[in-house]
């Protein structure tokens, strides 16, 4: 029998970035690793471009599908504005992994709102935790040859903080990703691990 400290993970991004597939992979990995898991995505509608969030909860026994505000252990954001939008969910001392990408919403282009700058974002997170990691996920994924591997790359990042063995992660990726593009996604996963390799949280 395996017991594990509860891990509440909030994954945020913009519709079309592949966060739902990422949350599916994470859910599958936790299942294969033998944990109880609940996972819920709020996406609402078919179109691209809206805010998307997934709650993923792992533990010995999980009741609620939604994570309480202020209880998130790991916030993993595929886009910077979508990181700060959900910052109140992160618990004091929690981990924030943020893809270094800005996707300004239409209102910014129309001049009716302003995109927060990096300093502002960092200052807000610093009030909550010292564990804030910006990852050049999108550019790393592009360098690998397929920007769409961002989601497996971000899974690589988060894997460094979760008690799930690497072969299990790869099995979960293999379940969810078609054979044609599996190799490049494995590489993206490794790339994500490497991006956070230096990090050590006691």
């Amino acid at each position, binding site marked *: 029998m395996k017991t594990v400290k509860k891990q509440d993970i909030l994954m945020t991004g913009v519709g079309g970035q592949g966060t739902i597939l990422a949350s599916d992979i994470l859910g599958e990995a936790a299942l294969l690793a033998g944990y109880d898991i609940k996972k819920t995505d709020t996406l609402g*509608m078919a179109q691209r*471009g809206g805010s998307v969030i997934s709650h993923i909860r792992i533990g010995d026994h999980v009741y*609620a599908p939604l994570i309480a505000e202020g209880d998130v252990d790991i916030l993993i954001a595929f886009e910077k504005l979508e990181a700060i939008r959900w910052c109140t969910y992160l618990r*004091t001392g929690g981990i924030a992994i943020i893809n270094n990408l800005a996707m300004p919403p239409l209102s910014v282009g*129309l*001049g009716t709102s302003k995109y927060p700058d990096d300093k502002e974002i960092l200052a807000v997170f610093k009030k909550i935790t010292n564990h804030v990691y910006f990852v050049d996920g999108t550019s790393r994924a592009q360098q690998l040859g397929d920007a769409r591997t961002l989601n497996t790359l971000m899974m690589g990042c988060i894997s460094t903080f979760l008690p799930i063995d690497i072969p299990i992660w790869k099995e979960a990726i293999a379940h969810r990703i078609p054979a044609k593009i599996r190799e490049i996604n494995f590489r993206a996963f490794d790339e994500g691990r490497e991006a956070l390799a230096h990090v050590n949280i006691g």
Partner: protein
Amino acid sequence: MPITMTGATTKKLLSGNEAVALGAYHAGIMVATAYPGTPSTEILENLAKYDDLNAEWATNEKVAMEIGIGAAYAGRRTLVSMKHVGLNVAADPFMAVAITGTNAGLVIVSADDPGIHSSQDEQDNRHYAPFAKVPMIEPSDSQEAYDLMAYAFTISEEFDTPVIFRLTTRIAHSNSLTEVTGKRIVPTDRVGFKHNTQKYVMLPVNARYRRPFVEDRLVKLAAYTETFPFNKITWGDKKLGIITSGVSYQYAREVFPTASFLKLGMTHPLPRKMIREFCKGVDRAIVIEELDPFLQENILAMGIKVTGKEFIPGIGELNTKIVRDAAYKAGLVADKPRANAISETPPSLPARPPLLCPGCPHSGVFYTLNILGKRSRLSDKSKEPDVIVTGDIGCYTLAAYPPLLGMDTTDCMGASIGTALGMEKAGVGRKIVAFIGDSTFLHSGITGLVDAVYNNSHITVIILDNSTTAMTGHQEHPGTGMSARNKEAPSVDNKQIVRGIGVKDVKVIDAFDLKALRSTLKSAIDNEELSVVIVRGDCPTKTRARSIPMAIDSEACTSCGTCLKIGCPAIQKVNDQIVIESTLCIGDVCAVCQQICPQHAIEPVKSAAKG
């Protein structure tokens, strides 16, 4: 208890909707019918994967319900699924089958949407159960959704009644571990239809005959629910007892790990004896439920003092924090909930509402109407626009946002035409255009158009035909030529319907041809008679159509911002420079921006590179 390791596990990570579908499949349904609607849509999508039953999209929820009734009368277990507001559309046949009863099991999934994630209202459909005097089942996770489905069919048959199977967004769209214990068994003992006037022909005389049966059925169900295995007391600390059901149970368990629980899997009729016993056994009993005080009021009516809605909000979705904060305020937990490091996000973060996709066939027509109808006046609120737009429900409702400002009203599916007619009768004095999607037109727009012809209306109706039900995730409908199973199907032609109804001014135009849009819309609006314009263009998010993306020649571009007025997410302003994000642009299959750029600065990437 943690489950076993890889290989040995029989558990699957299923969403509530997947579990409902699998549960119904194993319960032996032969017919499944539905109209799409978040959060219920995936139930039928999952059932459509099986070859050994009939899984179909119906034209609307009323038709789905009627098909369900017929199939159940004819002796086949049947599942009908819809979102909460769908049951309003289907309420008439639903109330009828509540009286006639069924033959084989008939289970109706109502998927409610607390929090209004993707609906027009937040109605609590639990009220339909006492209203129709039928039993109601409520799972609290995917495991229960799977397990309870078998019970729902048995109850339906044993008590000769349709059963409401009520989900909420957080049950339908959450994945949790599910042990799949059953396998498909199709009962055949009820197959075939037997004539029975008193049961099936609801003339007043027969309906009056059936009425006492319905009351009697409730009495029997009330006895049964006391023994229903999913109505369960778990004694803990007897100082506090919590009565709850559905997803609320999960939040309550986290906040009150040691309290006593009465968890209800069947919430109509209520197990009164069990409730009395439970309330007697605890010092204080409270009800934790989402939305209306449904359980609470029914328990209060039994003369038992319970509280709940005094501190648990009746609006929106619950979560652990809401229940925890409420419990603290009500003095139910001693510890003050720990404060967050920061309690609010920085003010004025740009919102990110869903938008029409790049290349959406709805963009050009709303852009055109914005100009013709002087609708940009809405942005400075100086004056009302020249044209009133009554809207409907679908992706196109998003055109209500700036910059398109394309909508004055949106109520429920199909309402655009009737609302426009009403404004006309009221003598509003301006031109009125009703917008309706192709799926919505077939769902409930046709009758409005018949009224327009009959009562001599002069409005313009625009049917946005993108050949899919896009909003809910691109389901087929009777006009798309494909079935729920993705097989070719006969297709209903909306142009012929419009003509057949008797509309004389009918035009069909290409959604991406701005010149044609402008002249056709102008003449339709100017026409003093009823006119219908069918705007056709495939939804690229469904077809995944892509071609060479567009790019802006930065030298030719004067940053005038005309192209930003389409509201296309691919056209962005970065540091005062307008650019087209090439990974988002679907290219020259759309080319709406290219047609409106006054500087002719927009070209497909390749030719721009050449020049």
